[in-house]
C-alpha cells in the first residue's frame, strides 16, 4: 500500500533492521547481488540475522563478510560451498552458523509461494534424499512428492537494472535470478538499481517486477560494468 520511497544512499534505503530479522539477499553468486545494500547491512548493527540467499558469499564480498563477522545466526541456501567461500566454510565448521540446505528449485518455489500467499506445495524434488528427511510426503498420480513450506522474510535486498518513478523494475540478463520472487516474499523490499528513469520511461509490457512489491529504491553504480 505504501508508495515506493527513493533514497539518496544505500543506508537510507535500508532503514532500520531489527536483531533477529530474516533477510533475503538476491543474486546467484555475484550476478545480481545487491552489493551496496549488503554493505549498508554490514555497517548497520543488526545481529542474529537469518539470511536467505542462493549462496553464502564469495571471497570477501559483503555477504561473506556478514558471515565472517558473526552477524548471521542461520543461512538458508542451496549452494554455500564455492572455491572461495572460506568465510562461510570456517564459520560452518566451527559451528558458528546454522545451515538449512535447500535444493535450488525448492528455494525458489518456497520464496515464490510466500509472495503468492500459498501455504506450501508438494514437489518430487528431494524425495528419498537426506534433504527431505522427516518431511510429509504424498503420492500424487503415482509419483512421490514432498511437502514444502513457504519462505518469507522481513526484508529483501534486491538488485535490478532500472526502476521508474513508481518502483517498477527491469533486470539485466541472468542477474534477474531471485530478485522478482524475493521482492514479493518480504514485508519490505529494498532495491539497488543502476539507474532510475522517469515514470513512463519503462515499457509496461517489459516490466518484470511491478512497483507494488517495492518499498524503497536507491541508485548505485557499485558494480562492475559490462564491457561495451
Amino acid at each position, binding site marked *: 500500500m505504501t508508495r515506493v520511497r527513493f533514497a539518496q544512499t544505500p543506508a537510507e534505503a535500508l532503514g532500520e533492521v531489527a536483531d533477529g530479522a530474516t533477510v533475503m539477499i538476491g543474486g*546467484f553468486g*555475484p550476478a545480481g547481488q545487491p552489493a551496496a545494500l549488503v554493505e549498508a547491512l554490514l555497517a548497520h548493527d543488526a545481529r542474529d540475522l537469518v539470511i536467505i540467499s542462493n549462496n553464502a558469499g564469495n571471497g570477501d564480498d559483503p555477504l561473506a563478510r556478514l558471515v565472517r563477522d558473526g552477524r548471521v545466526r542461520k543461512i538458508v541456501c542451496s549452494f554455500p560451498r564455492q572455491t572461495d567461500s572460506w568465510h562461510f566454510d570456517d564459520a560452518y565448521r566451527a559451528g558458528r552458523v546454522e545451515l538449512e540446505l535447500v535444493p*535450488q*528449485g525448492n528455494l525458489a518455489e518456497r520464496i515464490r509461494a510466500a509472495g503468492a500467499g500459498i501455504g506450501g506445495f508438494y514437489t518430487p*524434488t528431494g524425495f528419498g*534424499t*537426506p534433504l527431505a528427511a522427516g518431511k510429509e510426503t504424498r503420492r500424487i498420480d503415482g509419483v512421490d512428492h514432498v511437502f514444502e513450506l513457504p519462505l518469507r522474510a522481513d526484508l529483501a535486498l534486491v538488485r535490478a537494472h532500472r526502476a521508474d518513478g513508481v518502483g517498477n523494475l527491469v533486470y539485466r*540478463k541472468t542477474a534477474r535470478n*531471485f530478485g522478482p520472487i524475493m521482492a514479493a516474499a518480504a514485508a519490505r523490499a529494498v532495491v539497488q538499481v543502476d539507474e532510475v528513469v522517469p515514470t513512463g520511461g519503462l515499457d509496461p509490457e517489459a516490466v518484470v517486477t511491478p512497483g507494488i512489491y517495492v518499498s524503497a529504491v536507491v541508485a548505485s553504480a557499485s558494480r562492475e560494468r559490462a564491457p561495451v
Partner: protein
Amino acid sequence: MSPATAALTKRQLAARVAADIPRGAYVNLGIGLPTLVADLLPADADVTLHTENGMLGMGPAAAPGRADPDLVNAGKTPVTELPGASYFHQADSFAMMRGGHIDVCVLGAFEVSTRGDLANWSTGEPGAVPAVGGAMDLAVGARRTVVMMTLLTKDGRPKLVETCALPLTGVRCVSRIYTDLAVFDVGPTGARLVETFGTTAAELEDALGLRLRRAE
C-alpha cells in the same frame, strides 16, 4: 555392440552423449563434465540450452575480456546469449524443469545405481561443507535424465553400483549412463549394456561385480 577399441576420451564421451540428443531439444547440461557436450553438438542440432540460473538460448563461454558479470551459467562462468534467448527468474526456471518442459538433462555423478538412483551432491565425508544447488530439481524434473561420468573412480572403484552408498540426489531418476568404457540403460529391471569402448561385457561384469543384460 560398438567395435570401439579404446576407452573414450572426455571429448569423445561428450560427442557420444551429443549424438543421442534429439534435434530441436531443450537441454540442460550440468556443471563439470556435461558442459563439454555443448561444444560437440552437430551444427544442425538446433538444440536450445537451458541454464537453471535463468536463461534459455545460452551461447558459448564468453571470450576473454568480453565477460559480462550479469550473464553467467549455472557454474557462474561468463557465457553469451544467442539470438532468440530469453531470461526469467528462478521460480520460472525451475517450473520449466518441474513442469516437464526440458527434454534432456545431462548430469555428472559420484554413483548411479542399476535401477537409476543418483548420488551426485555429497561425498558424505564428515566435516565437508554441503552444497546441492539445482541437482535434485534437475534430476527429477527433466523428461529424460542421463548421466555422464567415468565408470571408475580415480582409485578404481565402480560408480555404477547395485545400491548407492552416498546420500541420494534422486530416486529412480536416471535412464541412461554414458561412461568412458560403456553406455548403460538403467531402470526397474536393472542395468543393460548398450555399447562398450575398448572392453568386453565380461570384463565389465568382472570390474563392476554386476550381472549386465546385453543389448541384442
